[in-house]
């Protein structure tokens, strides 16, 4: 086991991501965060809370999206679906997908499909806490990234929200 981000590092990394998202927001346009169920929500909750603290009153929308029904591995394993809660239209909007760990890219591929069933966004970006480089199976890269790491397939990266640490097993 190796600690990738300590509690303090995790805190400032999430802060940086929040500031980057605000920096990137074009004036007059809403910032739309869509957290990916189940574990992306935990990061998206934090970022959403921070954004409201840093920049109260700015136009920030937050939705949760489950991608179970869009997975490409339904024939290998059946997953239990989680709640989707997107109460606004994404038509012609800038949307930031939020997930904790970017690994093969297949979840994000499914998320892009799922997002399109809510409308046609103007632009979709990706924000992740941990980017596992060299493990990608699809041409997908993050636009906002907390930390990039090198790891092998047999290793597991787990964001432990109960102790606020990111660990490599």
């Amino acid at each position: 086991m190796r600690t990738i981000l300590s509690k303090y590092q995790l805190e400032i990394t999430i802060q940086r991501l929040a500031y980057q998202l605000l920096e990137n927001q074009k004036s007059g346009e809403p910032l739309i965060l869509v957290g990916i169920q189940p574990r992306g929500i935990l990061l998206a909750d934090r970022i959403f809370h921070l954004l409201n603290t840093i920049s109260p009153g700015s136009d920030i929308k937050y939705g949760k999206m489950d991608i179970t029904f869009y997975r490409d591995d339904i024939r290998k394993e059946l997953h239990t679906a989680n709640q989707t809660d997107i109460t606004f239209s994404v038509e012609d909007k800038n949307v930031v997908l939020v997930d904790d760990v970017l690994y093969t890219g297949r979840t994000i591929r499914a998320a892009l499909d799922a997002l399109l069933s809510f409308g046609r966004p103007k632009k979709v970006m990706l924000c992740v806490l941990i980017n596992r480089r060299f493990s990608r199976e699809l041409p997908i890269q993050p636009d906002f990234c907390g930390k990039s790491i090198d790891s092998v397939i047999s290793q597991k990266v787990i964001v432990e929200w109960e102790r606020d640490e990111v660990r490599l097993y």
Partner: protein
Amino acid sequence: MQLSTKHLLGIKDLHPGDIQLILDTATQFKEVLQRPIKKVPSLRDTTIVNLFYENSTRTRISFELAEKRLSADTLNFSAPGSSVSKGETLLDTVNNILSMKVDMVVMRHSASGAPHFLAKHIPAAIINAGDGINEHPTQALLDAFSIREKCGTLEGKKIVLIGDIMHSRVALSNIFLLKKMGAEVMVAGPPTLIPKYAKEAFDIRVEYNLKKALQWCDVANVLRIQLERQNQVLFSSLREYNLAFGVTRKVLKEISKEIVILHPGPINRGVEIDSDVADSKQSLILQQVENGVAIRMAVLYLLSDKQNFN
């Protein structure tokens, strides 16, 4: 999480955990059905045949829509107009269809046990869409889903099934399901339409007085009088049935609480339920139909990975 069964033949074979999983998955599918694009790609590699040996409007359309919303390819078969009239047997018909690479079979048949028979002989997943007077599992699931949505839970809720218990597959599936999920169940109707052994066999309450039944319950599921399944006259006239067991505004006013009304359809207006009750806010009849699609999507989705077991 997976279902403990390869087929959905009846509620009788399900564990409470299976029912919970189907209801929870249906909740997510109901959200999918509110989206601008109401379709998911989950079953795009699956072909499903809808075998209807008996008439149906709601169940058939609901299954077909659920299949299409899941991106499955669908085939529709109805017995009238097919080679069934030339004497082809059920097993031959199904085997011929399956040889064209069909993965799942949704079946309605007037013979009780027909889907159970098929399940023993063919390699595809089978979903019972109503067999004779035995079971209609997806109807019970959507009834339970509608009750859970309205009342929050099934556990401890008092639910009365009113009317033709004897000939109703909806009643049997509902009794199994509600008992498994911890609800209190009562059946009410004329003694000729309630099996004598109902109380002991299912451990449920039996009531022959409509007003008492309604006063007891939180939810009343009013069943259709199935004239096509009655070989003998079990009550003297429809008018008399309506006077004694019809759910009318008048009798609802006489009880001291507001109850929830369900009906599986098709409605015989003015027989088991009056129009002003069926169309009132108390009635969940159209919500039941809406929920039916989500429930059937959940069942098809959860059974779809069992298709490769041959």
